[in-house]
């Protein structure tokens, strides 16, 4: 995408994956689509053909996915992933959560919020979506969605 159309928030931060989530400061959300005929949700966005075998719709509406869900499972990364992952130096381990979204009936993976480790997590726990910096380059901070356990 060209420079002109890049979206940033008030702090000048932009998305590591443009168009995958809103940059709303208070209640950011993943952006998906929904088939207007059969109601199947898609994340990442699908806008060409519905993959439900009982539906051949090509009409979709863009929607924000539920910001809250429950932990389906969790793990962590103790070794530095290969590119395109951009690692801080030195590499910092991080936790990863699979989150079950009730309305959408789907599981979405993502990193856990900074500072959360596997010992903070349990299957079934309530979590919500936050935005944090994935990496910083010449254009500034690149944000990514992460899952934060609810108090």
């Amino acid at each position, binding site marked *: 995408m060209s420079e002109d159309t890049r979206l940033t928030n008030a702090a000048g931060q932009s998305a590591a994956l443009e168009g995958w989530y809103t940059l709303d400061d208070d209640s950011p959300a993943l952006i998906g689509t929904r088939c207007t005929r059969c109601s199947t949700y898609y994340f990442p966005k699908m806008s060409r053909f519905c993959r439900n075998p009982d539906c051949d719709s090509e009409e979709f509406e863009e929607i924000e996915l539920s910001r809250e869900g429950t932990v389906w499972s969790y793990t962590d990364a*103790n070794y530095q992933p290969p590119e395109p992952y951009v690692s801080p130096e030195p590499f910092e381990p991080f936790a990863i959560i699979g989150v079950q979204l009730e309305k959408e009936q789907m599981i979405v993976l993502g990193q856990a919020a900074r500072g959360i480790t596997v010992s903070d997590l349990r299957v079934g726990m309530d979590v919500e979506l936050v935005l944090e910096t994935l990496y910083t380059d010449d254009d500034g901070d690149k944000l990514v969605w992460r899952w934060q356990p609810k108090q």
Partner: protein
Amino acid sequence: MSDDIAILGVGMHPWGKWGKNFVEYGVKAARDALADSGVDWKDIQFVSGGGTVRCGYPGYVAGATFAQALGWNGAEVNTSYAACASGSQALAAARHKILSGACEVALVVGADTTPKGFLAPAKGYRPDDPDWVRFLVGITNPTYFGLYARRRMDLYGDTEDDFNIIKIKNSKHGFTNPNARYKKIFTEEDIAKSPMVADPLRLLHITATSDGGAALIVSSMDYAKRIGKADAVKVAAISTSTPTFASGNVEMPDIATDSAAAAGVSPISYRSTIALKAYEEAGISPKDVSLAEVYDLSCALEMDWMEDLRLCEEGEAAHLVRAGDTKVGGRLPVNASGGLSCFGEAVPAQAIAQVCELTWQLRGTAGERQVEGAKVGITANQGLFGHGSSVIVKR
């Protein structure tokens, strides 16, 4: 049964990190399989290769590459690429050709040379490719294995000890297997000392990537009879089925599952559907199984497979593991070869290697890891992008 084909010969190049060209492994495996079968290379009518995406153009056309290396003999060729199921799809292509009468005897062969470390995606900015996106956010293959393992622990009460029992069991199985890469009997202490990769899985709980090659000579039952091998071990079923919408499990390389929000849709585990089709095709029930070779990408995943193959009820695999049922000598040995745990993964060869092991076992020639009285064996594996397979072999 008329849908059976005979396994006349099997051969492997030992797994390892040899750093040679993949063709060398495939040729060695193919020549061993030919020698084992007693069939002359020039009599092979169809060469079916498992493709590899890591070895350039010769890997994309592996069937032809091996046919040329063995000496062009005019046979028809096929190359199947289906991630971890590549070998089974190559076998399925040969089986269809044989059962349709288009050929009588075929070579099925797969081999790979693998890079070090994590399997990584193609380069560039490619947000449309889920395999690229997941690595951007730091999700590697072990992430998925860690998620499955942790879910078992929180849901069923499986423990790290259970994973260790499986690791130690498989290391004992593979210890005397001449084709295994890791020939060391690991202890709990070794495992505890190995670094955590993707909690709760340590390095020794997760499969490595390996070089290796495996091959089969398969034929019609008529052909087998004509050359005096009517009692050969047989392929009774091959399932290479795709998932059913909607996926109930987060699968590599996806960042999310399908949504099961539409009316009439429910989430379904892919792994179990692969095996169920194989049982149906073979007319065999899980109770008939003497041993299983399953894709233990992690020690915990071995237990998922036991349940998906209906060898026990969901959530109960750890009971069998703790009772020693899945050891050679136990009631239902799993990964008598030593599994991926002792081999590491050589993608296009792995599903073929599983069939090699079952063939040796059903012939009663597996040496110290022999499962006594083995009559029916099942393989299972699953890879990226809706590829998985299960093969049933019987006496």
